[in-house]
Every structure is written in C-alpha cells, then in structure tokens.
C-alpha cells in the first residue's frame, strides 16, 4: 500500500476504489492550498455518488490538527462521503517519543505493599509480590513474577490489547484499558490454584482469565522475538 503513495503521484488529489472502500490520496509534494482547491473540485464531482466511507492517505507530510479538520470539512461539505480515518506516514518527534516510551519495559524489583503505587508508561515487570491495596499501573502489559494480590491496571492509556500476567494471579481488582473487574467469588473464571495465569480483554468487552500458556495464541503480537532455531 505504502509504495503507491509517494511524491511521484501525478495528480494532486487521487480518488481510488479499493476492496476496503474509497481511498483519497493527497500528494505530499503539492502545496496545502492547491490540495484544498483540488480536493474540493474532485469530491464535488457529481460522478461520485452515494455516501461512501473514505480513508484519507496523507503520505509523507505532517498536517496539523486544524488542517486535518479543514480537509475533513471540505470533503463533508462538498460530498456525501464520510471520512472514517486518516493515515500518515510521518510522525512528530513528540508522538515518536511517546510511542517509544510506550514500547519500553520498566522493571520494579521488590514488594509493592499496601498503599504503594507503581506506574510505567510502557510494559511493567514486577519482580516480587503485589500485596493487597498495592497498585501497579502500566500503559502496556503488566507482568508479575510473584503473587499478584492487589490492583493491576494494564493498557492505562487505552490499549485494549494489553494483558496482565502473573505467576500467581489472585488480584482483588483487574483493569484493562477502561474495563474494571472485581475478583469476587461470583466470577466463574476464578481458579482454585491461580498459578501462571493471564487476564485479557475479550472481544465481548469482559476481562477473561486464562492459563498463561494460552497467551501466545491470544496475543501473538506481544512476542517480539524473531527467528531462532
């Protein structure tokens, strides 16, 4: 896909049909005003009919939020099309730093005791127990090499794919993204011997607890290890 959208696009604005819907490609070599004018012309073409959903490809150019809103407004005002997303091939330094910190893993060695809060932007590895009323929070995944008996929150910045894994998972509260689960006796998924388990957010929106061995099938993307023999 990426290869198609380059500076060598002949047109300033290109509208393409793909099997996933319409695609509006903006030429990253053209000036912004040129793009707006051309876009307005292209989308108001009566040949384009129907209220299709479109993706806007921005290629190698950074647009400010206000500019993106302006582009959307041009499309919405001059056609029945609805912009469902934008895709940009460049990121700002700020975004990049945030992405790096979210991908990093931080390690805490020791016991997280009652009243203590440990936070990480990316993944969090706790080597030790998390006692009741202790709280661990991570933007990414939470891994506990020890007994998780307190409160664990994974995907704190909204990542619904985040998981909580522990050698011994007997937390009082589990939270993934915005979904909170209190581990009361009524929960059927609680096991007698909560050894080597993980919690993840099921597509139904509920937090499910499963054996740790299932993690590689549930969230294969967590594994960053390539190759091997």
């Amino acid at each position: 896909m990426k290869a198609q959208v380059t500076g060598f696009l002949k047109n300033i604005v290109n509208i393409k049909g793909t099997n996933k819907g319409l695609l509006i490609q903006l030429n990253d070599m053209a000036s912004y005003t040129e793009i707006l004018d051309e876009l307005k012309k292209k989308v108001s073409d009566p040949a384009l009919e129907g209220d299709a959903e479109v993706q806007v490809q921005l290629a190698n150019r950074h647009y400010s939020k206000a500019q993106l809103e302006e582009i959307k407004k041009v499309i919405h005002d001059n056609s029945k099309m609805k912009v469902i997303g934008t895709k940009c091939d460049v990121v700002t330094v700020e975004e990049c730093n945030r992405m790096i910190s979210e991908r990093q893993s931080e390690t805490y060695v020791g016991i997280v005791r009652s009243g203590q809060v440990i936070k990480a932007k990316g993944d969090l590895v706790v080597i030790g127990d998390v006692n009741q009323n202790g709280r661990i929070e991570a933007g990414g995944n939470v891994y506990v090499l020890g007994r998780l008996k307190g409160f664990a929150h994974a995907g704190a910045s909204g990542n619904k794919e985040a998981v909580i894994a522990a050698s011994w998972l007997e937390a009082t509260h589990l939270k993934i993204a915005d979904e909170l689960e209190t581990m009361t006796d009524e929960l059927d998924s609680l096991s007698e011997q909560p050894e080597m388990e993980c919690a993840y957010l099921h597509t139904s929106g509920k937090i499910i607890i499963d054996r740790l061995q299932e993690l590689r099938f549930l969230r294969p993307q967590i594994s960053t290890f390539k190759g091997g023999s």
Partner: protein
Amino acid sequence: MGEAIVITSGKGGVGKTTSTANLGTALALQGKKVCLIDTDIGLRNLDVILGLENRIIYDLIDVLEGRCKIHQALVKDKRFEDKLFLLPAAQTADKNDVNPEQMKELIEGMKADYDFIIIDCPAGIEQGYKNAVAGADRAIVITTPEISAVRDADRIIGLLELEENLEAPKLIINRIRPHLMEAGDALDVNEITTHLSIDLLGIVPDDERVISSSNKGEPVVMDPSNPAALGYRNIARRLLGESVPLMTMDKPKPGMFGKLKSIFSSK
C-alpha cells in the same frame, strides 16, 4: 552509644504499648540501661502499664519546649536501679505540637546515656507516626494473626522502607492463640512472614495475665514462668544479638501444651 528502636504497627490495639513496656523491662532485666519514650501525645498509656503514672512531673512537650531539662522529665522505675526510665507523653497537647526534627534532635542527644531508647509509636500513619519514626535507627513492627492487622503492618512496612536512616524493619507477631492457628482459623506464623517478607524477631502467645499485669502496672515479663513473658524475654535476647530458637507453638508438643494448660488452670 545506644540504639533507638521504634515500635509501630499501623493498626491500634495490637500491643505496641504493651510490647514497648515489656521489651524495655526485659532489656533492663538483662542489665541494659533503657529509656522508653511515649510519643502517643494526647492518649498516653505507657506510664500506666509501667505503673509510673503517679510519678510524672514533666513530659515530652515540656522538654521540647524548654520548660524543663530532660533529666527532670524522666521517670525512673525504682524496681530496676537506674536501668529503666520513661519519658512520658503530654496528655494536654496533641501530636501536631511536635515535629520530626525536634524528636530527632532529642533522641540523638539521649543516645549517649542509654543502651536502648525504645519509642512507642501511636496508631496511624499521620503526624504522630512521623514524629515517632524520625529519631529511630531501626523499627519493630507488631502485628497479630488477624488479616486487618497484617494489612496495616504491610502498609507501615512500606512506609518504613522509604525511610533512609532506618534499618530493614523486623516483625513481632503478638497475641498468638495456638489452638486457632492449629485449626486454621487464624493466620499462621509462616503465612504472615511470607506475606510481609521481613525478618521475624519473635512471637508472643496470647495470655490473660498480660492484661491483668498491665492493669497492676507490672509488665508481665517480670514473671519468668509466664509464656508471654518468655516470648518477650526471647525477643530481648535476640535484640542483644543472641540466637534464640523460636518458641514452638504451631506444632505444640503435648508437654508444652500440658504446661500451658496447667498454668491456666492453676489460677
């Protein structure tokens, strides 16, 4: 140069003051010069348990505010010649009338004169706790085999571990009832120590005579035949560097149990 030890627990009613009085007395019995400091300002009790209530003239606040010299405020326990002293708390002030810097300075100045300074900490984690911990070199955490007490001990250990000048805290499990532990109706010693994961300094069995002797103003530790007294004496010996095996209670031998029974039934 003496050592300042703070006795704390987070939760109230687990036996901080009783333990302070008994450990202080046990150390004095071993020939050490001990000063007990009650920091529970506004709710002082340590003087009552030691039977020294009527001898108080000045208190901690008087010393800190310069109304008297330290030696004027100290109450000497006449049962142990020049070995056991009490610096009582004020009853008419409150915990916010003292700050940690003052306590640190006071205790630092007293260390040269004593082998042990034992600080009785009030319940809670607020100002009173901060004052009590400020001057200490090490901390002893008291808990009982109850979940609520263990939770609060966990919290207090977390706070103690943040104090830079403090050695790693040690644990005393107080008021152990062997029959409940054996039946699995109370947390057992192992469960508590693995949960809190700090060193166990000792265990003290629950005994009615701890209460009666406190009411009489004679710490139970003075009666060598009492099981709770034995617990406290063992802890005092460990504080002095001796290695004393833990009292066997989780698997009581018939002999031990019989002994306990005979103690109860004889009174």
